[in-house]
């Protein structure tokens, strides 16, 4: 087991990952990790605009985990936070910052994610903006939040087309991974 922790660290370092989290994410938790992430980048004198982009992509991804992960960690105790289980990674590959996230989704939601992600993958800035406005109208009228808006937001912040992958786990669950390069 001790070996494990060294191997994890070694892998993370090799890939330039400076923030790795896997486990239950709640809103309060997200705020504090986001804060250390921001502080670290500020100390490294990363430009303001990159920090803002990395931070906002990190927030959108984390909130998608809270809202849409099929694995939730909620005790019945009153006042305990809503937490979704997932993994989130932030790193620097030598040229660019990247933010990746992963979580389990229900197979019944696979089409929804696939539809949105495949559409935004090839969209340019203008198209994304149009799509964003379109989704925004829909969401407002539906009065409910889907993953659409936040994924489009992520794509708009991304310097390159976002990459995604759906790995089927079993007859009920699929693992969704999304990578954004800022």
């Amino acid at each position, binding site marked *: *087991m001790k070996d494990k922790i060294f191997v994890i*660290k070694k892998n993370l370092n090799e890939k330039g990952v400076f923030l790795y989290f*896997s*486990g239950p994410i*709640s809103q309060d938790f997200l705020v504090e990790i986001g804060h*250390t992430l921001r502080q670290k980048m500020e100390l490294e004198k990363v430009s303001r605009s990159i920090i803002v982009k990395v931070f906002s992509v990190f927030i959108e991804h984390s909130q998608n985990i809270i809202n849409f992960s099929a694995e939730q960690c909620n005790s019945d105790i009153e006042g305990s936070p809503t*937490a979704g289980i997932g*993994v989130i990674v932030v790193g620097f590959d030598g040229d660019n910052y990247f933010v990746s996230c992963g979580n389990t989704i229900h197979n019944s939601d696979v089409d929804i994610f696939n539809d949105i992600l495949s559409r935004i993958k090839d969209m340019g800035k203008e198209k994304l903006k149009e799509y964003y406005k379109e989704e925004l109208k829909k969401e407002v009228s539906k009065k409910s939040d889907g993953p659409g808006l936040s994924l489009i937001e992520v794509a708009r912040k991304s310097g390159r087309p976002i990459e995604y*992958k759906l790995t089927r786990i079993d007859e009920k669950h699929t693992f969704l991974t999304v990578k954004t390069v800022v």
Partner: protein
Amino acid sequence: MLDDLYGVTSDLGNEGIFFCLSGPMSQELLVEIGGAIKNKMLMDEASKSTMSQVFSIIVEMVQNIIFYSDEKLEYEQLGETSSCNVGLIAVGEEKDSYFVMSGNMIKNEKVNRLKNRIEKLVAMSKDELKKFYKEQRRAGPDEYSKGAGLGYIEMARKTSRPLGFEFREIDENMSFFSIITYV
């Protein structure tokens, strides 16, 4: 990374690890780490005393990272030098116990001193640990500790199996130090 994010996560899951954070640590983040673990353990219906033991080990480990990790960024704040220190903390379950482990970079010149200190604790019986804890609690902190120098003794007293630890040399300056406790 995209390709193996699922792999990494299921690897951790296979080891029983349900929480793993590697990155800059802070006191405020520690509060939230504690909250997240508590929430998960409430779901598991863990006993209050198990929860408080796990929590207490997490606090000692994360504060050790905050104080002693040599992977850090220093900065000036209101005329005082503060730092943002990086480390790793993981919590998991194995059969009927929980384990908490942490890892951080440490300068090679500090390795021997820390290694001797932990080896000494590992060799002690429960009673010896208690006696040593009390002695240290009354003594002034040694010149190297920012806390009370009681953190590792506390871990050694709480763990239900001997403390596991390891130092791996990374390069001529740094080693990676990891430690694991079971509750």
